């Protein structure tokens, strides 16, 4: 078991000061090497759940065990190290830094890594693996959307992350590019990585080995363990 989230609750205050519950006693288990899709209507809590699982946000209550360790109460520095070394993020709008080259973007996580290693060979390998040969010195603005997203996936993997959290990674891509990115994610799963893919699109969700559907902050269907099943 890689991820074990139990009875996670998360609420926000809206602009009027009202408390809005986003995640309600949500429980979810994901095994190592699984390809899980997470779908549901807007505002159902998909991104919030992704942020909690990615240690970018803390749950108000409940526990989040990652690879056997309860990480939701860890201090910020330790959670930052965890994000840096084990979790790879892929975003809908790529979030590449426009002033860095492709290589610079891929190497960005190294800037915050405690172990400073020479990753040039790893970067070359990733460029080759994702069809980005010869583009290392280009800037993101010179690439197509699909290429940019592949750079973002390479950035997520450069330090050897074993959990990939992809938030609508194909949302800004044409269908060919989207298929290319999904192929990449599927290949990562074959290599033993765990991928959690947030998507609105049922066709894309079907590419995953398990489809989880969220509704109103709870898991509505799929193979995930909802409140009653946990």
């Amino acid at each position, binding site marked *: 078991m890689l991820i074990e989230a139990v009875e996670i609750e998360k609420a926000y205050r809206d602009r009027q000061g009202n408390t809005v519950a986003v995640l309600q006693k949500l429980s979810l288990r994901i095994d190592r090497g699984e390809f899980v899709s997470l779908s549901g209507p807007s505002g159902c809590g998909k*991104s919030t759940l992704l*942020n909690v699982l990615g240690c*970018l946000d803390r749950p108000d209550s409940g526990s989040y065990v990652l690879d056997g360790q309860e990480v939701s109460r860890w201090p910020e520095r330790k959670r930052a*190290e965890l994000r840096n*070394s084990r979790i790879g993020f892929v975003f809908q709008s790529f979030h590449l830094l426009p*002033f860095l080259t492709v290589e610079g973007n891929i190497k960005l*996580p190294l800037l*915050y*890594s405690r172990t400073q290693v020479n990753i040039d060979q790893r970067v070359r390998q990733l460029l080759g693996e994702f069809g980005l040969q010869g583009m290392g010195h280009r800037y993101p603005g010179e690439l197509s959307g699909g290429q940019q997203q592949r750079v973002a996936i390479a950035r997520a993997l450069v330090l050897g992350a074993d959990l990939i959290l992809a938030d609508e990674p194909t949302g800004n891509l044409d269908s060919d590019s989207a298929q290319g990115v999904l192929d990449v994610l599927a290949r990562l799963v074959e290599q033993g990585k765990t991928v959690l893919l947030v998507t609105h699109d049922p066709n894309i969700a079907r590419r995953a080995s398990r489809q989880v559907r969220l509704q109103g902050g709870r898991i509505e269907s799929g193979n995930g363990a909802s409140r009653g099943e946990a």
Partner: protein
Amino acid sequence: MALKNGKAAIQVLLALRTRTLLLALPVAGSIALAFATLAIDRGLSNRAEAAARSFGQDVISIRSGSRIIAGQSGTVGTLVEEDVLALRSQLRGARAVEGTRIEDNVPVSNGSRNGVYRVFAVRPPWAEVRQFGAARGEFLSDSDVQSSARVVLIGQTVARELFAGQDPLGAEITINQVPFRVKGVLVEKGASPAEGDRDARVVVPITTFRDRLYRRFYLDQIVVQAEDPSPESLAVLESDIRRILRERHALAVGEPDDFTIRLADLIAEQSRGISRSVVYLLLGLAGLCALVAAAAIGVVFAQAVRARRGEIGVRRAMGATAGDILWQIWTEGAVISVLGGLSGFAIGWFAARWLAASRNLAFGLDSVAIAIPVALVLLSSLVGLVPARLAARLDPAVALGGTDSR
């Protein structure tokens, strides 16, 4: 932490070169203005102190005014030998009182070599009062004065220009076509802002000047050497001099002095060339400029934090802590301040040097000239902490837009 975040900051600054340059410019301007002003001020202060020292801290100078005499053409001075005698007899606290006659641009020749110099007509005690004795040969004697002897002491510049390495002692030169024997060479004094090249002068007996050169009876200057050079004593002496001379010149109450009394500190202030108030005004402008520069950095960075939420969110997702973000954003502001500061120092240095050379000002450095610009750089660096804290406090999930889609 500082190294990695410094690297991130440099990457951003290089990518946003135009913004970096535009923000560094006002910092550079304020530092250049502050540094140049302080360096010029220090140079002028040094020069003023040197001028005061060279004139003599214990010496009060009384300059003659001018008046028109009915039936005579031109003007005559208001100081006469009787004033000197009155001051000598009535003034308490004066070590010496000496009158001098001065004529500028007097032609002096040694054969085919000639030049124009300032002629000082004095008595022997003048050498001690002004510390302007003979470096070689002898100074004037009482008998020279009594006999209106045609003897002269020449300054170092005169010796160099008229004798070109030859020994001037005993040689005959002409002053305004009157032959004089060189009795000595004056000590070297160098240039003074108040008096110009003080080595470009010749000194003759006061009687010889009157009897053989210009037939002038009035004095151009009286110098009074105080026994006690403290400011309080000099002030009392100045007041007594004014009272004695006004009585002697029969000046009515409310009538202005027909002479000018100058103390060493006044001579110093006059020789500065720029008044203190101008220096303060320039420093105020530099301070204002620095505040504007700091505010610009603060405002631009605060706006940049809003515009760079995505970047901040990504960095946090990649493993940056809030501290990393704070260090990076602050370093960006600090690097701009330091870059601007260093450029400002360089610009200010050259500007001050150029002004000193071309506008008859002076250049000098002291700890204040360095410390004030450094303080201004620190101020603008510290302002960057405000937007840096804003950036560090940004919730990474919010920065990535996570709450919008939930």
